[in-house]
């Protein structure tokens, strides 16, 4: 062989070799150098081992990434705002209820993944992307597709996940009806938290969520010309219904639930004022929180386990190991849980990381 094994022994030679390596890797190899044989190798590796992504993949990723970024921004902001509201002692909310509500808002819709089978199949170029993004519940398919998935989720009883799935889909859209829908669905999500203290109430709420989502899926954008007013009123009404105790099928629910949007809603959507029949339920504006205190200890306990971490989103820890795809739990961990592991040192690793 050309290079004796003790080649590296000399400092001076190493330096020369280092320079040659830099030139080689820069694509300007030294003629007749010790490593000039490797020039074509470097070339072939770079041209053939670094496949340019297909345009379709690029577009797909760009869409997904953009919505991931926006999703990370808006719910985070909303969550902070909501948390601030919920955490204020004068509202009399237990921390648990606050965290349950937060969890619902932050849930990344993992449960939707199993069914969010997008068009790409294993082996397709897009499959990897679809899978990765669907694993955290974003970017899969059009808004319509998402709404359909949300309806299916709701029909299976996963109301919270269904709402979150739909909200995430709708957030990508602009337009009055999308905004109205997001507002209504957010109200619905909050109401849902407050109405789950008995199985009957949960079932009733679940049915109402399905009704609401079906309405949204079928009617969104239908009257865009009229500022979506009719649609907005429709969704707002259906969302308010979720907070009402009575069974949508007619049976009387024993539990009196606070009216949605009465205490914590930051969504004074069209027609959001309390109506007479709601007042009968004992829910008056500003009063709903007292009622909901007891609800914090309801069946949502599992969710609250996931919560404390939601502030760690930006912690930049980065040592965790489980990729999001590996946590398919139905009570989707809040984004706060898998985010920290995802953020390896954000401070320019090229600069300050030398030991």
């Amino acid at each position, binding site marked *: 062989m050309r*290079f004796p094994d003790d080649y590296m022994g000399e400092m001076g030679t190493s330096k020369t070799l280092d320079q040659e390596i830099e030139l080689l*890797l820069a694509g300007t190899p030294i003629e007749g150098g010790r490593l000039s044989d490797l020039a074509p190798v470097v070339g072939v590796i770079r041209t*053939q081992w*670094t496949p340019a992504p297909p345009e379709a993949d*690029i577009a797909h990723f760009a869409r997904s990434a953009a919505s991931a970024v926006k999703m990370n921004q808006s719910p985070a902001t909303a969550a902070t705002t909501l948390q601030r509201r919920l955490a204020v002692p004068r509202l009399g909310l237990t921390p648990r209820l606050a965290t349950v509500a937060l969890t619902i808002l932050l849930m990344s819709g993992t449960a939707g993944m199993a069914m969010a089978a997008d068009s790409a199949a294993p082996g397709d170029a897009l499959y*990897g992307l679809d899978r990765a993004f669907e694993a955290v519940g974003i970017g899969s398919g059009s808004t319509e597709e998402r709404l359909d998935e949300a309806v299916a989720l709701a029909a299976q009883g996963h109301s919270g996940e269904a709402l979150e799935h739909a909200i995430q889909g709708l957030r990508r859209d602009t337009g009055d009806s999308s905004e109205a829908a997001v507002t209504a669905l957010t109200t619905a999500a909050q109401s849902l938290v407050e109405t789950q203290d008995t199985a009957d109430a949960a079932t009733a709420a679940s049915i109402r969520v399905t009704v609401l989502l079906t309405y949204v899926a079928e009617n969104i954008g239908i009257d865009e010309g009229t500022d979506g007013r009719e649609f907005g009123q429709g969704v707002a009404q259906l969302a308010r219904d979720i907070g009402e105790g009575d069974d949508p099928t007619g049976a009387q629910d024993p539990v009196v639930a606070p009216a949605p949007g009465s205490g914590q809603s930051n969504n004074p959507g069209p027609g959001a004022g309390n109506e007479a029949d709601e007042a009968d339920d004992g829910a008056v504006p500003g009063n709903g929180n007292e009622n909901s205190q007891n609800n914090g200890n309801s069946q949502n306990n599992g969710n609250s386990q996931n919560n404390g971490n939601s502030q760690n989103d930006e912690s930049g820890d980065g040592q965790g190991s489980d*990729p999001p795809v590996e946590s398919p739990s139905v009570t989707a961990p809040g984004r706060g849980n898998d985010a920290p592991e995802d953020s390896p040192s954000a401070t320019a690793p090229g600069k300050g990381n*030398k030991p």
Partner: protein
Amino acid sequence: MSSPHTSIANPRDQDFETRLRAAKDGAEWAWAEIYRDLAGTVTGYLANRGAAEPEDLTSETFLQIARNISTFDGGESAFRSWVFVIAHRRLIDSRRARQRRPETLTLSDPMGGAVGDVEEEALNRLTTVELQAAFEKLSESQCDVLALRIIGQLTLEETASVLGKRVGAVKAAQRRGLLALSQHLDLDGVTR
């Protein structure tokens, strides 16, 4: 920093800043450019380093980048390092998950890149399989370094930061690695 790819970076520093800002705002065009620029090298790196599903891992890597972009602050070089830090961690995680040594590379056969005459002749004999086999005779750390430097096209400093090594250690690893690669490939008589 005079690196192999500062030729790309310099005139585009401002572009990168604009692009980063747009990416943080969720602009699709910015993400398309980021993906177009880096996805190929990331996939190549992951495949070379034995990822079972390099495309999937690439997707996960870029997804993570999108989700954490708000935490990133720095220039283009730092960004490239950051991308590969994430890719590298993903790789290690997936290996750990599979609890075994990296599998053999499953790259598609060379499709005949844009190379000519003597080189072309050499490369005809130099199949992907042979190349990968030569790579696999190297030590893990040499592979890491060479994959990042050749495929990832990172600079010395960037490579060091991704791997958490000192620049001197990277230099030593690439010296040994490249010399060994040259020997293993036995290019004598091909390019001479």
